[in-house]
């Protein structure tokens, strides 16, 4: 992962989560993964295309997703309904969009795909020929992981 790409994603994730949840966040240690990795249960994906291509995942458990959706909507949700899913999708969109804005200020151009949300148990995600950067973030509602895999288009 090119060094210049890292910070925009870290900062965007942090500032957006702080804005929407308004509470104390802490960030775990960033690390790289190259092999298949299990995903937690609710995953929003935003694809990137352009000079640089890849995808950004926001990965969290169903419980955390409901808590975050409840907090963002200001109402208690007990099931992962359409509104909750739409909220998480929007969260992914906001984080990716802000990161991409920062990157385009640095001269990298991207296009985004519409976000997709995937839910289910025992899922794994595998990237071929690209390493994924994991940014773990701890919130008062639970843990979520921003998982970014990008590469230069040859």
């Amino acid at each position: 992962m090119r060094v210049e790409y890292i910070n925009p994603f870290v900062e965007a994730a942090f500032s957006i989560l702080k804005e929407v949840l308004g509470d104390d966040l802490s960030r775990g240690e960033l690390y790289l993964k190259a092999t298949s990795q299990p995903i937690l249960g609710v995953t929003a994906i935003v694809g990137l295309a352009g000079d640089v291509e890849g995808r950004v995942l926001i990965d969290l458990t169903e419980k955390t997703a409901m808590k975050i959706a409840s907090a963002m909507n200001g109402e208690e949700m007990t099931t992962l309904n359409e509104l909750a899913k739409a909220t998480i999708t929007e969260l992914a969109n906001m984080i990716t969009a802000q990161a991409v804005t920062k990157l385009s200020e640095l001269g990298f151009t991207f296009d985004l795909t519409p976000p997709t949300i995937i839910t289910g148990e025992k899922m794994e995600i595998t990237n071929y020929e690209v390493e994924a950067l994991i940014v773990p973030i701890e919130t008062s509602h639970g843990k979520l992981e921003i998982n970014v895999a990008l590469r230069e288009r040859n």
Partner: protein
Amino acid sequence: MSAMIDEAIERQEEKQQKKIDFKMVTFSLAGRDYGIDIMKVDGISKIDKYTYVPNTYPFVKGVYNLRGDIISIIDMGKMFHIQQPAQAAKDDSKLENILIIKSCDLKIGVIVDSVDKVLGISRESMQDPPSLFGDINIKYISGVTEVDDRLYIILDTDKIFSEEEEKKAYQTESDEIDEHDSIETMDSQEESASPGINFIIETLNTFSRFHVSPVNRKWVEHRYDQWVEISQKRGQEPQLVDEADANEFLQTFFSRETHQLWSDEYREKMESILPAKMDGPLDVWNPGCGKGFESYSLACLLKRKYPENRIKVWANDSNLLEISMATNIVLQKAQIPAWINNGGFIQDGSGGKVFTKAVKDALYFEFHDIKHKNMVPNMNLIVARDLLSYLEPEGQKKVLDEFHGKLKSNGILVLGENESIEHPGFRAIEAEALSAYVKE
């Protein structure tokens, strides 16, 4: 890079700085792991036949001549009534593993199933033995510790052997006198290793993640001899107690001009191994680039030597903090050697001198772990100084194969000054202060 990352990295470092203040030699006996304080261990040996002494305790197997010293050989299993799993008829020609223990001015050889390794642990991680321990009488145990999911029982050899000396009542549970009637021989094969260097090897790995392997063994052995001298002068044991010690031990390992831009002298040495002319675009791989001094030096050197060619340096490191600083490096005048300063590679920036856009555009810094899949094109030159020593032997082989695969024919590989390889397909190049190879 943001302060948040620094914080995270510091946290991680703190975790690793567990103090090692107790070292033990570990061995297995009847399928269990035991440890003995390394200070009590005089050596490790393999012996085959020892002299049987009549009318002794059943656990005394006999005496043995170890390089002129007569030592008693004790069967720890029998002494503590440890049931050996149904043993196949003992093969007389088999060598026995012996741990030689110093205790109360005595040297005693203890037969064990196999000697495992030297382990460094922190005394804090040692726990008192649970009172229900079966096999060995609890007073002989100084503690229990768990390392890598293995439970080690740490024996107190002083207690064990002093009691033996005092001949405290030892009730022979069975009158079975050992049937073995080995005839004494003097021509036994023996091999003995000083536990000192093995412990150093272990601690280098623990504290600095430095792997001793054929790549650097020559240097480590040489350095160990120096280290013994240094320690003697200081009146210390030649061991590495903490990370600071490990770093001091490794101080002379690193290639010259590691955390700085290369001097004119070093540039000349590096240029001497490169061909006078190269065709087409030049791709250079610089894994383990750290803060990037090496990568910038390389980019400037190549731009100077091959002004006609397009140069691209693919630099990567798995240390996020260091590589984050590489992209926007700001230098003070004193850090910049004349050949770079006068070569048109430097301009004024905010807070100091920076590299020109042309140099920066030739560099591509990536946060990347070389053990993962490497997505780089084929290379003319690979500079990986002091990288292999920080990979596990398996990783080393994989990375070397990858280097070989990624190099164009006649491509050049530069390793650390104190590293050397024997790898099919690479031929060493004679060069001063460099360890370089050409792909055949």
